């Protein structure tokens, strides 16, 4: 008994030692021509499926760039993706951001959630490290005036406006109920939606709240049902929208459910099952099949990682946009290539990417989808 314990202890010490060495190695090689790029998304927790999707998208781009043999300043460029998990939590996000800055990354792809991206962006800004978020849509992210903050996805203002107008003009809703998940994303989208729907002449009969960890919405749905809306808008993610669609049926609340890009995922259709039928949701940008490089990307991605969740093509493009700027500056030093980022003019998988003065993608479009017999089908694209 005693000897086995001693053995276990020795193994533990050895393991800890190895981990220590591993980290040291990474630090050393970083100086020798390897350029590290951070990729931050929730890799654990309720949104881990979306986080891993982003991370895979970025990894795919990194591997392709490494294989292509790009040269910077005469030396071959070796990219290394440093994947970090921010748990979709604003506090963890800042810790991870500081860790990446201290680790000397040349740039950051991320974060996934607006709520995590916004506090982290201050840390990257202070350190002068460029950050491109593939999926943070909250207006506040680029409204802070940080020269280091970019995104390759349409923001909530454009999306919320499109959704609000669509709800009133096309779906004919006069009384509307809203639920949001109180995250920077869900709340931001719901507020923009509310503004646009009111402007189009609808009445908001209820605005209820939940969280991005809930699965039980019966209480708020019951209270909404008593107010007889014709449409329910949800600002939040698929993991909540799925059970929500089911519970609406369960309560006999037969109204149109409308959501944003957090709902327009394969996961939602799977979770809501037959109750997904008829749900309308939007997604910034073009549908994958209509993206310039969408089909090719889908083939490459699914061959390696399986089904695309949502934002993987954006993470993929974000890496390319960053590396393109490095190539033009002929340097991976943040101080050198940061000035090249606003001049981006890149034909990516998701579309033509150019940035406006704030760092938002210029001329974004929003596409509306409806769930029909288990898949999302395109309704229309609003420019």
């Amino acid at each position, binding site marked *: 008994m005693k000897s086995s314990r001693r053995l276990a202890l020795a193994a533990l010490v050895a393991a800890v030692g190895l981990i220590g060495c591993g980290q040291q190695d990474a630090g050393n090689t970083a100086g020798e021509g390897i350029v590290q790029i951070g990729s931050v998304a929730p890799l654990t927790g*309720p949104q881990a499926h979306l986080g891993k999707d982003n991370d895979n998208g970025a990894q795919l781009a990194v591997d392709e760039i490494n294989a292509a043999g790009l040269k910077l300043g005469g030396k071959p460029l070796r990219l290394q993706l440093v994947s970090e998990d921010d748990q979709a939590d604003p506090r963890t996000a800042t810790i991870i951001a500081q860790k990446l800055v201290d680790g000397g990354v040349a740039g950051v792809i991320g974060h996934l959630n607006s709520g995590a991206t916004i506090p982290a962006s201050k840390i990257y800004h202070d350190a002068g490290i460029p950050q491109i978020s593939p999926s943070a849509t909250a207006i506040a992210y680029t409204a802070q005036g940080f020269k280091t903050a970019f995104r390759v996805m349409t923001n909530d203002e454009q999306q919320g406006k499109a959704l609000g107008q669509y709800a009133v003009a096309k779906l004919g809703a006069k009384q509307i109920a809203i639920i949001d998940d109180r995250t920077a994303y869900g709340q931001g989208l719901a507020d923009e939606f509310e503004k646009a729907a009111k402007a189009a002449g609808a009445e908001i009969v209820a605005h*209820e709240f939940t*969280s991005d960890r809930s*699965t*039980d919405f*019966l*209480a708020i749905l019951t*209270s909404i049902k008593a107010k007889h809306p014709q449409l329910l808008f949800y600002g939040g993610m698929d993991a909540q929208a*799925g059970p929500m669609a089911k519970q609406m049926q369960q309560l006999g609340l037969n109204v149109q459910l409308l959501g944003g890009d957090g709902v327009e995922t394969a996961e939602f259709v*799977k979770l809501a099952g037959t109750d997904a039928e008829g749900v309308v949701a939007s997604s910034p940008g073009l549908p994958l099949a209509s993206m310039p490089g969408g089909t090719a990307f889908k083939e490459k991605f699914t061959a390696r990682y399986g089904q695309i969740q949502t934002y993987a093509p954006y993470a993929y493009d974000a890496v390319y946009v960053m590396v393109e700027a490095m190539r033009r500056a002929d340097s991976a030093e943040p101080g050198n290539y940061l000035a090249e980022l606003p001049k981006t003019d890149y034909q990516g998988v998701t579309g033509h990417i150019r940035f406006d003065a704030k760092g938002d993608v210029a001329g974004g479009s929003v596409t509306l989808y409806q769930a029909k017999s288990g898949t999302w089908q395109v309704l229309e694209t609003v420019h």
Partner: protein
Amino acid sequence: MDILTQQLINGLVLGSVYALVALGYTMVYGILELINFAHGEITMMGAMVALAVIGALVGAGVDLPGVVIALFGLLAAIPVCMALGFAIERVAYRPLRHAPRLAPLITAIGMSIVLQNVAMLIWGRQYISFPPILPQGRHQLLGATITDVQIAILCTSVILMAALVTLVKRTRLGRAMRATAQAPQIAGLMGVNVNTIISLTFVLGSALAAVAGFMVSAYYGLAHYYMGFMLGLKAFSAAVLGGIGNLAGAMLGGLLLGVIESLGAGYIGDLTGGFLGSHYQDVFAFFVLILVLVLRPSGLLGERVVERA
């Protein structure tokens, strides 16, 4: 539709699940004065195993009624969770039984993280959906809607709780459990095998957790490796609210917490004129918990425990 009745039904169904999980916390605390933080994760494991079996059966095209397939899933989950509960006690708690109280608390949290990550490695980060095999019938009750699944959850919980109370109060095993809870050393001197009783407590609690996990995934139509955390936290609060260590207290606490949450989320916005919204539903529930603990520190039904000699 009667809104109040509907909210009460919502709350009671939610609360009966909390109560079932809370029983696991309270049983272990009653005997070991240990808070088994891994209990929420055992619930999650129950849901995952049940769903894996159900998914495999449905995928293989087994031609059985949906309820039977679901029962197969449940019957697979119960022994797995029982074995898990047994193993956790042996590995993480028994070696530390005479250690300071903080040590097993830390291993409990450690076990909970290990289980979460094991589930993530086995089943991945995706949500796993419950196939639509259960009856979807809806019934009208006093102007509110109640579904077949909700009725099944309420009935199963009540039956299981009654069975557990009978076991503890009426059988030899139950007497041995109560004796171990009161004074483990004396119970040992009287011929009770304390280790066996403690193992059995964990196994029983884990079986209840398996049923609860299965019911939660059937109710919400999904399972996820992370689902045990919040459920465990709520159930633990329910156990504390009712008086931890007290079986009836755990049930009362669970039901009460469910109803308070439901009513809080449903009415708080209208009552405060929109000043406080439904996102305060948890705040509301925990505020009640604080209030109860200030007025009755040992919980609603908890008795003042005399310090052990």
